């Protein structure tokens, strides 16, 4: 199946949101949002529930009217067009397939509403794109969750939208199917070349599929960029702990000196390369990802150039590919450390003293509210980067 299956009829142009705001009474769901989604990209809006990501999506679809701001497709402001007047289609959360129509009619719905009579060929091609040939006469209730999801996708894609919106499209599927559909969606997106805007609360899903991820919090975008860039160098403490896990130590930065930012944390002195510091003076969080921390038995085993701190192992969970340790520091915080079970690293028992060390080039420095303490996350919650 080549990229010609679904050709775009008109060049779309980038999707731009300009100062987009939505208030419900006194609650601001989306707060002065401005961003550009390049044509043909796979864009993910990532955030916890209630962060405004779905409202943003609904405003692009036309299901919600913005309080103010613009939704621009190319040069055209579509913010106040009715949903059926927009070249935008949606794959709804839990699919919203029409239960009274069979699969064929579900997929043909959009074409028929636009007065197209000959739909058979297009529907057949669409069903084979999503690998559902021969399912046309079944009802939605007779399909499995994954099949329904693909019908929902076919039903939207058949209209050659300029932008396809996906609202938690995989949320109702079990883990294995979700992985499979992630790859499938990515394949289809590459084939059809349509701009995909994908809303999800699943960081792993966003990172797997999207070219660009925007992390949303309280109606605003906290950080926008390629998944690896955001993960390796988060912009805020929120992002550092929403996308994967981070150990954030309360520190004081003392200004840039010789390409480095020296910091003091809990009485010890460390440093971070200047290009990995979001602040260089005043209260800061010194951050290191758990998998970037390495445990050794004593300080003389720390490689040259690495920085370290000492603590006592308070918990060790063996999870197969890795062992996840909690290291209690002398001031009482607990740091997460993921050690790959590669057979080359030493194992530590609970109660043992250990030294955690890291390469300063893997650390990062984030702004911190004065008075805010360490932000370490002892809850081991399916970390990114540690395959489970």
């Amino acid at each position, binding site marked *: 199946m080549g990229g010609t299956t679904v050709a775009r009829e008109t060049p779309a142009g980038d999707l731009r949101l300009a100062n987009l705001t939505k208030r419900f009474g006194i609650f601001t769901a989306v707060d002065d949002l401005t961003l550009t989604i390049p044509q043909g990209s796979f864009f993910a809006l990532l955030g916890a529930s209630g962060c405004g990501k779905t409202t943003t999506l609904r405003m692009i*679809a*036309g*299901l919600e009217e913005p309080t103010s701001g613009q939704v621009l497709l190319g040069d055209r402001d579509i913010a106040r067009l*009715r*949903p*059926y007047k927009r070249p*935008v*289609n*949606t794959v*709804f*959360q*839990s699919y*919203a*397939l*029409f*239960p*009274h129509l*069979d699969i064929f009619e579900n997929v043909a*719905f*959009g074409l028929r*509403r*636009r007065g197209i009579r000959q739909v058979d060929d297009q529907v057949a091609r669409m069903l084979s794109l999503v690998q559902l*040939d*021969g*399912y*046309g*006469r*079944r*009802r939605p*209730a*007779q*399909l*499995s969750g994954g*099949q329904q999801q693909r019908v929902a996708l076919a*039903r*939207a894609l058949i*209209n050659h939208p300029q932008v396809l919106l996906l609202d938690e499209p995989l949320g109702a599927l079990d883990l294995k199917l979700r992985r499979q559909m992630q790859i499938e969606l990515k394949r289809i997106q590459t084939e059809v070349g349509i701009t995909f805007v994908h809303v999800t609360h699943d960081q792993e899903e966003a990172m797997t599929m999207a070219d660009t991820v925007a992390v949303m919090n309280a109606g605003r975008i906290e950080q926008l960029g390629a998944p690896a860039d955001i993960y390796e160098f988060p912009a805020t403490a929120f992002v550092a702990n929403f996308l994967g896990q981070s150990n954030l130590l309360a520190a004081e930065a003392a200004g840039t000196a010789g390409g480095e930012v020296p910091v003091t944390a809990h009485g010890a002195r460390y440093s971070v390369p200047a290009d990995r510091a979001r602040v260089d003076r005043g209260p800061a969080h010194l951050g290191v990802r758990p998998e970037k921390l390495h445990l050794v038995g004593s300080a003389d085993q720390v490689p040259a150039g690495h920085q370290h701190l000492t603590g006592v192992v308070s918990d060790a969970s063996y999870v197969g590919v890795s062992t996840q340790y909690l290291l209690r520091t002398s001031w009482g915080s607990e740091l997460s450390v993921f050690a790959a079970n590669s057979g080359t690293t030493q194992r530590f028992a609970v109660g043992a003293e250990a030294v955690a060390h890291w390469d300063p080039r893997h650390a990062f420095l984030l702004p911190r509210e004065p008075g805010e303490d360490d932000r370490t996350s002892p809850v081991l919650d399916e970390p990114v980067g540690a395959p489970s």
Partner: protein
Amino acid sequence: MSARFWRWLADRWVMAVALLVLGYLSLPIVVVAGLSFNRPSSRLSYDFHEFTLDNWRNPCATSDMCDAVVRSVQIGFLATAVSTVLGTLMAFALVRHRFRGRAGINVLIFLPMATPELVMGTSLLALFVAAGVPQGFWTIVIAHVMFCVSFVVVTVKARLAGMDSRLEEAAMDLYASEWQTFRRVTLPLVLPGIVAAALLAFSLSFDDFIITNFNAGTTVTFPMYVWGAAQRGIPPQVNVIGTAMFAIALLLVLASTLRGRRARRAALPVAPAVGGAARRRS
């Protein structure tokens, strides 16, 4: 006493009582059906005397009874049509819109269902008499619409509220205008609720006696005919009508159940590809 014994006892005990109660509920139907084949010994006798098919061969032997049945059907259709339209409109407003005075409207809809029929009947009579409205066919229709509307609202509302509003959003997202969305998605999905409401309204109207009795003037509906005849002696044909009503309603229910089952079967996989998942009927 082991838990198993208790469970065994509870299972059998509850089911046995349930079946006895069902017998109690069904007994009069059996008697009505039986009496429809009875040739009574006298006009005022309610006992089974002699088997005959005459009542079924000639159900309209007492012509005023059949007139009453026809009148009840006419009133039933009119009251059903009007109350279904009014109630459906109200249900849409209540489920799909936000407006001031919702609480008041809800009370107005709830009260007729909680008020004794006697009070509704007498109050309407008081109004018609005070206003000098002659009572008859049309006052009955007015009264029936009044007490049916609330039941229609409740029934349609339940169906509408259970409907996923994302389906309508999906339709609009797929280029259906407001009218097309209503015509292609909303209406087909709500229709079973509206049909159920109409059937309920018809049966309420057809069987109503108390409210009708106060507002009928000299017009006679089927229940009023039965009431009047109870004093003078019931013609056995009344049981024919009662049995026929029961049979028709039962057939309707069975037909709709069977149709539902057949529709599900017909929709089963045409291409027996990966059959497993598709065979989950629900």
